[in-house]
């Protein structure tokens, strides 16, 4: 097993006729993901990379049985794209696009909640259940099937960690990048719970960074509810206050959201924190 995506995932790519959408649709299909449809208003009836294109996500659901959507449309159109997907009948939406206005995400996420649909992202690399399905822009070849769940606010840092895991022979059940913006969809608590309940996940790696207090909350949640071993890493120990470190969400405001606070919270919850990515496999093995 795995969480969120697997062999039954039937993916529709919103913005498949765009440069990024097309490129990654091909990569995902190549990995083995069931990419069953794409959308591009006005191009319904055409094909892109051999994949049928529809005018709407609803059409992709009705005609191709899509149950998951991945969004590559430009930032100004993301809010509408998420709402469209949430209204269409898919149960999971992954938004890759970066640079989306925060209030657009606030509204679109609320709408998705109203429709009972899960959202991952925006500004995220997506997720992968190795050997089963890849949705997003992660490089599939560095992953390995296995029993460790990975949750991360980052992209390449996740790959770095996963690469170390894979090299150490530790495979992954599912690896998820939740996104680097201040407001995004599924986050630590929901995902920790899913991994805890997944019989094919034995341990969890959590990769956090500065900004907000989600790591502190996750630490408390792990202490209270998670029985599986967890190892953590926090990026941004050296980040100065008040500066946005690439991710819109990675900013230390008025002295809160620092790496130290987060590391302390994990320590208090009994979760070992790696001081560099290469330590993570050992931290997992030691538990």
């Amino acid at each position, binding site marked *: 097993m795995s969480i969120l995506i697997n062999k039954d995932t039937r993916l529709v790519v919103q913005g498949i006729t765009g440069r990024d959408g097309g490129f990654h649709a091909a990569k995902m299909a190549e990995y083995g993901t069931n990419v069953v449809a794409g959308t591009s208003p006005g191009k319904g009836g055409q094909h892109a990379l051999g994949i049928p294109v529809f005018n709407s996500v609803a059409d992709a659901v009705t005609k191709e049985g899509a149950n998951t959507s991945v969004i590559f449309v430009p930032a100004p159109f993301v809010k509408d794209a998420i709402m469209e997907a949430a209204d269409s009948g898919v149960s999971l939406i992954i938004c890759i696009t970066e640079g989306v206005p925060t209030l657009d995400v*606030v509204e679109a996420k609320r709408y998705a909640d109203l429709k009972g649909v899960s959202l991952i992202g925006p500004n995220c690399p997506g997720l992968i259940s190795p050997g089963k399905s890849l949705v997003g822009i992660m*490089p599939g*070849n560095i992953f390995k099937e296995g029993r460790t769940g990975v949750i991360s606010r980052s992209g390449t840092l996740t790959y770095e960690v996963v690469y170390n895991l894979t090299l150490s022979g530790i495979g992954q059940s599912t690896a998820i990048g939740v996104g680097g913006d201040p407001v995004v969809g599924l986050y630590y608590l929901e995902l920790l719970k899913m991994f805890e309940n997944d019989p094919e996940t034995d341990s969890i790696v959590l990769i956090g960074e500065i900004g*907000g*207090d989600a790591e502190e*909350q996750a630490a408390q949640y792990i202490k209270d509810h998670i029985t599986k071993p967890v190892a953590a890493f926090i990026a941004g120990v050296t980040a100065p206050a008040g500066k946005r470190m*690439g991710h819109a969400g990675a900013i230390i405001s008025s002295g809160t959201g620092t790496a130290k606070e987060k590391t302390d919270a994990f320590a208090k919850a009994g979760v070992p924190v790696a001081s*560099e990515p290469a330590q993570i496999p050992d931290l997992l093995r030691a538990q």
Partner: protein
Amino acid sequence: MKIHEYQAKDFFTQYSIPVAEGIVCRDVDSCLETYKNLFSEVVVIKAQVHTGGRGKAGGVKIAKSPQEVRQHAEAILGMDIKGFKVDRVMVAQGVNIASEYYLSFVIDRNSRSVVLIMSREGGMDIEEVAATAPEKIIKIAIDPLIGIPEFLARKAAFMLFDSFDVVKQAVPLIQNLYKLFTETDASLAEINPLVVTKEGKLIAIDGKMNFDDNALYRQPEVEALFEPDEEEKREQDAKSKGFSYVHLKGKIGCMVNGAGLAMATMDMIKLYGGEPANFLDIGGSSNPNKVIEAMKLLTSDPEVNVVLINIFGGITRCDDVARGLIEAFKYLKTDIPVVIRLTGTNEAEGRELLKGTSFHSAQTMSMAISKSVELSKSRIK
């Protein structure tokens, strides 16, 4: 993006939020002129800078005569507050304050919504209140589909004020500030202090607004107020080239793909005893031009004595990245040593290509960082 107090108050006025009347002045003469025109014996002269704590720094003074206006204006104009030079002040009417409150809207990550924050501890640093007396802070999450109906504004107002007369003034103020917040894509809209005057009027005495950088494309009126300082200019210039850049004060320039990995690289430099010179995320792709631009940016900092390039090859393979780097360095003349670490897809092929070049190539992140720190230290001696 930050704006000045007087600009925030212009927005307040556009949205019918009462403010103490005031005018921005760039020299002492206009301060005196404004003092005359305000018909107020008491005025407040306030430095307009993109940072907090101006009060403690002496940037806010009360004046009761033309002499005092001149004296304070002269002192404040030109003052340096936390590295920001004061080039204008606001001269505002004095107000008979009966009581002070705090009221703001911010984006809240946890509830994934806009949150109304209020406190009866107005005029104080709200983070301090939050830390020392969290029970004195009221937070109300706003449902984006509903906004703030009158009943909710009234409920909030009754939590903050005892007088129904003030509540009735607060209801539209709360609704209008939320409207301003959402319509301008703000990330913060703060009134501190919000005061009740001795005459029973509700007035915003100080105002602060920050905006969502991602939404500036649809907020031309906000964008027009952007006044970057020197560092922000450098960051913005980087942004226009597709980079995220933050300047620090160390010696080791870093070029990394991905924000998280870039932060982790900085952290490890520090952990290994070095000093990172910057945060630089160059994003995806192996485009040589991007590398050239990034190198120019790093080497424009005279402090930098080593450059560390840390690339995780994912969708873009390591061999392609290596080719891009080699191509780029054909056009770059520099005697600063460059440490390169390529990991990920096709990393062996990538490293093979780098053999025989002048780059210091490292296999792991630890090795790359050790090498960089070692080189940086040796170059200081």
